[in-house]
C-alpha cells in the first residue's frame, strides 16, 4: 500500500500530460512564439514568416519539448504531508479546493523529425503526443473523507481520458507580400498544409456514474464508453499573416486547423464498460444484484476533428531585448484546442548575443494552470543550442510548482 501510494503520488506529479503542443523553443517563451518563429517552425506558428532569404534545417529529435502538469499537487503539499505523516481535515479541504472539480493531468510532447526551409518554401515533419486526463474530485473525497455524503455523481466533464499521437508532414509557402497600397505597412502571407498520420487515439466518449450509500443499500452505476483507433490519416491547414508596423514591432494573425481532422481507419473499436450494483447490503452480498459487463465493438471509421483556432501575436524586437505577446482562441474543445482564451508573453534578453536569455509567461485557462518559462541559449552562428524549462502554477520551479516542462533546441541556419 505504501509503495502504491508513492507510485500514485509520483504519477500525479509526473504524469506527462498537458494541452497544447509545441517543440523546444516555443516552450521557452511559454507559447508566446507566433512572431518569433521562423524556418521550419514558422509552418506551425505563422507560415507568413517563412523567409526567402533563410535556409535552416530541423534535425531529428533535436528540437523537442515536453510539458507535464497537474492542477492540484505540488511539492510543498507533498512535503507537508510526508513530514507530518498524516492528512488533516485542513489538508483535505485544501486539496479539494485546489482541484476545483477535478484533478486534471496533462502532457504534451512534440519533437522534430526533419525539416528544411529554403527560399520561402519549407518541408518538415514532426511527432506529436498529447494526453489529457481528468478525475473527479469525488474520487478523492471518497478516499479522504469516506462516503459520508448521500450521493456522488461522476460526469464526463470531470472524468475523461484522451490520448492522441500523430505525425505530420507539412509543406508551407510564405513570405508572400500582399499587394497593398504603399501607404499601408507591408503585410506578408503564408500558408502551410499538414498531412497527418494518425498513430493512435483513445478517448472516453461517455462517462456517467452514480454512487449512493444509504438505508436503501449501496448503489453504484458506472457507464463508460472508450473509443480507440490505431492508424489514420488526415489534414490540417494554416494561413498566416504578418506585418511590420515599424522597425521594431511586428504583428501577425493565423487561422490554424483549417479542415483539421484525422480519419481513423484501422483498429477502430469501442469498449462499453458498465457496472451496476443496486440495493447491496453487507448481509446479503451473495444475493446482491451486481452486474459487470464489458463489451467490445468494432466501429466504423471515424474522424477526430480539430476545431479552428485563431492566434494573434505581436513582437517588439529591440537591440537588447525582444518582447512578445500572443493570444489564442480556439473555436472548440479538443486534444489540441480550447475554447478558453490563452494569453502568453515572452521576452528575450540579448545583451550577450552568444548567450540569449529568455523568459515567458502564460496565463493558462480553465484547464491549464498558468506557467512561467525560463531558458538560456548558446548561439554561435549558424547554430544555436537552447535549454529551457517551465514552472507550472508557480513563479519559480520550486515547492509550489504543479508541473515542469523541459525544452531542448538545436538549430542551424539562424
Amino acid at each position, binding site marked *: 500500500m505504501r509503495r502504491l501510494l508513492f507510485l500514485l503520488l509520483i504519477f500525479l506529479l509526473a504524469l506527462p500530460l498537458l494541452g497544447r503542443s509545441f517543440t523546444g523553443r516555443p516552450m521557452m517563451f511559454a507559447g508566446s512564439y507566433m512572431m518569433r518563429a521562423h524556418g521550419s517552425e514558422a509552418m506551425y506558428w505563422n507560415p507568413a514568416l517563412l523567409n526567402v532569404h533563410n535556409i535552416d534545417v530541423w534535425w531529428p529529435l533535436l528540437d523537442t519539448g515536453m510539458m507535464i502538469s497537474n492542477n492540484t499537487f505540488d511539492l510543498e503539499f507533498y*512535503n507537508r504531508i510526508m513530514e507530518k505523516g498524516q492528512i488533516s481535515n485542513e489538508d483535505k479541504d485544501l486539496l479539494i479546493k485546489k482541484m476545483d472539480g477535478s484533478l486534471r493531468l496533462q502532457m504534451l510532447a512534440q519533437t522534430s523529425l526533419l525539416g528544411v526551409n529554403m527560399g520561402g518554401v519549407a518541408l518538415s515533419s514532426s511527432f506529436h503526443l498529447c494526453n489529457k486526463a481528468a478525475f473527479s474530485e469525488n474520487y478523492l473525497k471518497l478516499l479522504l473523507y469516506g462516503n459520508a455524503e448521500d450521493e456522488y455523481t461522476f460526469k464526463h466533464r470531470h472524468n475523461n481520458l484522451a490520448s492522441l499521437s500523430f505525425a505530420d508532414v507539412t509543406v508551407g509557402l510564405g513570405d508572400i507580400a500582399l499587394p497593398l497600397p504603399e501607404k499601408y505597412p507591408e503585410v506578408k502571407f503564408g500558408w502551410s498544409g499538414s498531412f497527418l498520420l494518425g498513430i493512435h487515439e483513445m478517448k472516453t466518449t461517455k462517462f456517467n456514474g452514480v454512487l449512493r450509500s444509504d438505508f436503501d443499500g449501496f448503489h453504484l452505476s458506472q457507464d463508460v464508453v472508450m473509443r480507440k483507433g490505431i492508424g489514420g490519416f488526415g489534414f490540417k491547414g494554416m494561413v498566416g499573416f504578418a506585418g511590420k508596423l515599424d522597425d521594431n514591432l511586428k504583428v501577425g494573425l493565423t487561422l490554424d486547423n483549417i479542415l483539421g481532422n484525422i480519419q481513423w481507419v484501422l483498429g477502430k473499436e469501442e469498449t462499453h464498460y458498465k457496472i451496476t450494483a443496486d440495493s447491496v447490503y453487507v448481509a446479503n452480498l451473495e444475493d446482491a444484484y451486481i452486474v459487470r459487463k464489458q463489451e467490445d465493438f468494432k466501429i466504423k471509421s471515424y474522424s477526430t476533428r480539430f476545431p479552428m483556432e485563431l492566434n494573434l501575436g505581436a513582437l517588439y524586437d529591440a537591440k537588447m531585448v525582444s518582447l512578445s505577446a500572443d493570444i489564442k482562441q480556439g473555436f472548440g474543445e479538443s486534444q489540441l484546442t480550447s475554447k478558453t482564451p490563452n494569453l502568453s508573453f515572452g521576452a528575450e534578453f540579448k545583451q550577450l548575443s552568444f548567450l540569449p*536569455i529568455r523568459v515567458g509567461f502564460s496565463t493558462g485557462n480553465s484547464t491549464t494552470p498558468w506557467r512561467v518559462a525560463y531558458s538560456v541559449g548558446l548561439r554561435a552562428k549558424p547554430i544555436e543550442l537552447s535549454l529551457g524549462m517551465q514552472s507550472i502554477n508557480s513563479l519559480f520551479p520550486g515547492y509550489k510548482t504543479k508541473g515542469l516542462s523541459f525544452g531542448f533546441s538545436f538549430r542551424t541556419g539562424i
Partner: protein
Amino acid sequence: MKRAVLFLLVILLFVVSCEIEKPVFPEWDVKLQVPLMNRSFFVSDLVDSVNIVLGDDDVLVLRGTGFAYTQQDVKVNFMPQVNVANVPLISGMQQPLSAPLADAQNRVELWYGIISSGVVKARFSNVSPQLQQAKLTFNDIRRPDGSVFEIAFDGSTEWVSHSLAGCTIGNADLSAELEQLNVNVTVQSSLPNGTNVGTLDLRLNEKIHLAELHGLLHNFDIPVLENAGTIEINYPENMENAIRLLEAKLKLSIQNEVGFACEIQGTMKAERTDTGETVIVPLVDNEGNNLTIPPSDANGPGEGVFIIENGIGEMMQIMPNKVSLLNMKYIVRNDLMDGIGSLRYTDRVLANYQVDVPFTMIILDSYLKLKEPIELTIDKDNRKLFENHVENADLQFLVLNKLPLGCDLQMLFSTQPVVDHTDPSTYLLKKEVTLHSFQWVENNPNHPSVNSNGEQLISLSLSQEEMEVFTNPTLYLNLVFTMESTDQPITIKGSPADYVRVKSMIIADLHVTEDI
C-alpha cells in the same frame, strides 16, 4: 546581462535546492457509511403449521396437540354365579340342567361373547364302578371350532377345571340375552336305567374374561392410559413472565371404536412448575354438560368433535408449561343407545385434543431475557481493526414496525456468559435501544425518531472507549427485552401486512494507516 545570468542561476538554484521528503504512508480519518441489511421479518414466518398456526382472521395461534387413548386390552369380566351341587347321575337318562347366569356384579348383561379366559369346574363323585359314560353338554357354549362344549367323565372323582378359552358363549345371532346356563347330562352304565350311579357338582363361578362382548354393560368405564398425551410447553426466552394470554380453546376429536356410547369424564390439568400454579378444568361442554360420543357401528367408529372454551382461557393465563388430561375415562352409557352394544378387547377410544391459544395478550411490565447468550468470537484482524482503526461507530436502524408490540432492548456485552442486567459489574458494556409499536408511532407521528413513512430511526453509538470492548477475543451478548406494556389486550396477526422491516447501516470513523 550579468544580472540576467544571475537571475537564471537563482532559478536553477530554486530547482536544485528543493528538498523532497522521504515518502511515507500518511494516516488520515475517513467516515464510512456501509449499508448492512434490509430484511423484513413476517409474523407469518413463525407459522410452522404444527405448533404455531394461523387462526381465524389471520390471528397467530399457539397450538398444542395431544393424543390420549385407552388401553388396548380392555378387560370385560363376567362373573356368573353357577354353583350346582349333588346332582344325581341317573343311568340311562338324559337330564337337563339349568342355572341362572347373572353377573355377580350386575355389570354385564351377556347376549353373546368370546371368552379369552375362564374355567368351568366339574366333579364326578360317588361314582359306581358300572358307570360307563357321563357327559355334560353345554348348549350355550361352543368351542372355537363350533362344536358344542362338552365335559366327559374321565375317571377322576376330584374337581377338574375345564378351560373355556376361545369358546363362545350365548347366542351368536344376538337374538336374546343369555340368562341361564343350560347343560344336558347324559349317563350310561351297565346298571339298569334309572339307577343312581354317581353325583355331579358343577361350578361356573369364577371370572370369565371376555375378548368380545355383545350385550349391555352397567357402570363400566374404560380408563385413558396414564400420562397419555401430556403437552409440554416451552415458551421462548421466559416469555411466560412477560405476557398473559387471554383466550384459549380446547378441541377434542374423539374416535370411538367401542360399540357402546360413552360419556367422557375427566379434567384437564395445567401446571406451571416454576410458580407451582395449577389449574384444573373439567371436560364439559360450554353449558356444563358431560360430553358423550356415539358407539361404533357398521360404518366405522363413532366420532365426536367438541370445542371447549369454558375455563380453558383461564387455564392458559397461568402460562402453564405442562398440560395433561387428568383421570380421564369413558363411561359406557346404555341409555344413549338403541339395543345392545359390543366391546372387543382391541377396541379403543382415541382422543386427539388440541389446545389453541390465540396470541391475544396483555403485555406485563416485565422483561424477556435470552436463555443462552450469543457467543461472539472476534478474530485477530477484527480485534486489530477495533483497537487501532475504528474510532467510533454509529449503528443505525430504520425500522418499520407493523406490529402492536414494542420493546426496549438491552444489549449486554461481557466476557462471561452469565450476567445480571441489574448489576453493572457483571458486564462490560450495555447499550439500549427502544422500538415502539405501530400504535405508538401512529400516536406520535411528529416524534423526532419517526419519519414521514412511519419508520423509526434507532441509533446505537459506540465511542472509542466502548470499541475497546471488542478487542476481547470472546464476548457474550445477552439480550434483555422489556416489552412496551399495553393497557388493552393486543392481538398478533400473521397476515402479509404484519411484519417488521429492518434496514440498518453502520457509520464508522476509521483511522487509515499503512497496515489497514
